[in-house]
């Protein structure tokens, strides 16, 4: 009854609006996925000129479209490093921010600044810094730093939210049972927070994997994947561009799916073992 009366007012127009929003989000993406299966004579727009995997094959022939394989490997490696560093550093900082310490607000404002300073400034600044110091920029040094400046604030803010809801009674209990601080973290805090840490990792990986502006002047002489794609937009006029878009999008979806599955596995394992770890979260 209650639901029905509420729905009569604005439910339907808003539901339609929401539906249109979802179409707006996914529509363009699905057109390029469809178009990437163009026949060998097909162009960048509809109609479809046959169906084929021609452009996907074309994509993996290195000489045809630049260094897709190498760029993908670099982006993958960089994303994984950023993920590990983001999870570890944000988790430690999250632990620190549960206590009062001198300079806490300075660190907090640094994190906020890192979010609102335009990406191109970070790119220019790190590029100039390496230039002046005479260091060679590379994806694993300057590029890594530039990406971390974007992922760490997200990681930190997520850890704030997570620790806000974390019941410290579990830690007290562990401590009262004689656990050392390290044991408390290893056997109590980490298992409870594992799903959230998977989330932080997902943020770290995908933000890095898709980052463009911060890589621009920091990636060094070898392109990461978004730089490679950007280069292709200016000089490739065949559906191979869409094939690349499809491949990276499918890869991104696979990463998200893996993260969701990982969280489900953690939850399931807990339920099976009858552990109540994580119930508080």
């Amino acid at each position: 009854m209650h639901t029905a009366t509420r729905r009569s007012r604005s439910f339907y127009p808003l539901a339609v609006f929401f539906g249109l929003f979802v179409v707006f989000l996914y529509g363009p993406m699905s057109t390029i996925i469809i178009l990437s299966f163009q026949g060998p004579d097909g162009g960048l727009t509809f109609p479809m000129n046959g169906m084929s995997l021609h452009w996907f094959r074309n994509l993996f022939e290195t000489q045809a479209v630049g260094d897709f394989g190498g760029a993908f490997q670099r982006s993958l490696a960089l994303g994984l490093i950023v993920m590990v560093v983001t999870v570890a550093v944000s988790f430690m900082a999250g632990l620190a921010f549960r206590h009062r310490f001198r300079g806490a607000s300075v660190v907090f404002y640094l994190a906020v600044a890192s979010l609102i300073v335009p990406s191109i400034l970070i790119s220019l600044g790190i590029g100039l810094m390496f230039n002046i110091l005479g260091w060679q920029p590379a994806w694993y040094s300057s590029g890594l730093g530039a990406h971390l400046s974007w992922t760490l604030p997200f990681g930190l803010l997520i850890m704030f939210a997570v620790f806000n809801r974390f019941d410290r009674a579990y830690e007290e209990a562990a401590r009262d049972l004689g656990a050392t601080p390290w044991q408390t973290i290893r056997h109590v805090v980490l298992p409870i927070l594992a799903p959230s840490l998977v989330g932080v990792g997902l943020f770290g990986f995908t933000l890095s994997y898709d980052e463009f502006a911060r890589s621009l002047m920091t990636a060094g002489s070898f392109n990461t994947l978004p730089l490679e794609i950007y280069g292709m937009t200016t000089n490739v006029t065949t559906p191979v561009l869409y094939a690349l878009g499809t491949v990276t999008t499918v890869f991104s979806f696979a990463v998200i799916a893996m993260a969701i599955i990982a969280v489900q596995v953690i939850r399931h394992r807990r339920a099976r073992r009858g552990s109540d770890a994580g119930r508080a979260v």
Partner: protein
Amino acid sequence: MLHPLIAPDPAYVLLPKQGNSVSVGSVAQEAPAAAPRVAARRAGVAAWAPYLQVTPLTALFLLFLAVPIVTIVVVSFWDYDTVRVIPDMLLTNYRELLESPVTWRTYGNTLRYATMVWALTLAIGFAVAYFLAFHVQSVTWQMALFLLCTIPFWTSNIIRMISWIPFLGRNGLLNTTLIDLGVIREPLEFLLFSDFAVVLAYVHLYALFMVVPIFNSMMRIDRSLIEAARDAGASGSQIVRHVVLPLCKPGIAIGSIFVVTLVMGDFVTVRLMSGGQSASVGLMMANAMSLLQYPAAAANAVVLLLVVLAMVAGMLRIVDIRREL
């Protein structure tokens, strides 16, 4: 707006906060002898551990945020020729930047984009978040639909921009459909490589940055406040206007900061979607950088940073977001 948001958020006060308050006291009461030792050990840990734990984060921010920004400020006073930068103490870069009418036009254009995108994403974000938070009754559906909205955020921005080309192009899906339907005779030229395309792409990319914080704010609103307003005779629109909207202001502010700063610093979207026909501050900087005119780009960067910080400070003066964090 009716309520100044300085007043404490009633929802936040009313909702029981999970954790933190449980059982520490009772443990101490049951084992009085152990309490001082535990307290001392905790104090001992608290004294130095936080500094150690926060060191990696601080070091990374100093090295890859603070030092680069200082570098930009320093280099903005340097001289340059076609191949290198030369340490100096000049105001020429700023003078050339600020005296050029192109600069002012470009900043004006970028602000225009930011305003339009802000207004559109706010309207869309509020409606979408409102639907999710107040109309979707089951938590499972709520999370599923929220996830549906967030997934595109995890994919490449450049791919999402490119994906508009087959839709908006001269022979694109929209034009051919409209011609087939007999609505238009000639393809619409303004759809792609135009300001329209730029703003559309921005809204497509950044609407989510508005949806998520507003949704977050709405989920914190105590539903009994809505009931109370309804019992007091408020209409649906009055509830939105006088109850939901004021309580969402922190979320709106966070979303606005994200959207405005992202648009102000962007250059890829403008370059790709305007086909080189429009300018933005970021694009101006990127062009200077590609010509190795780093000090000129640095001066522009300093001005852009000041503009962005002033805008963020302005938004924070209107809305206090600290409670939300």
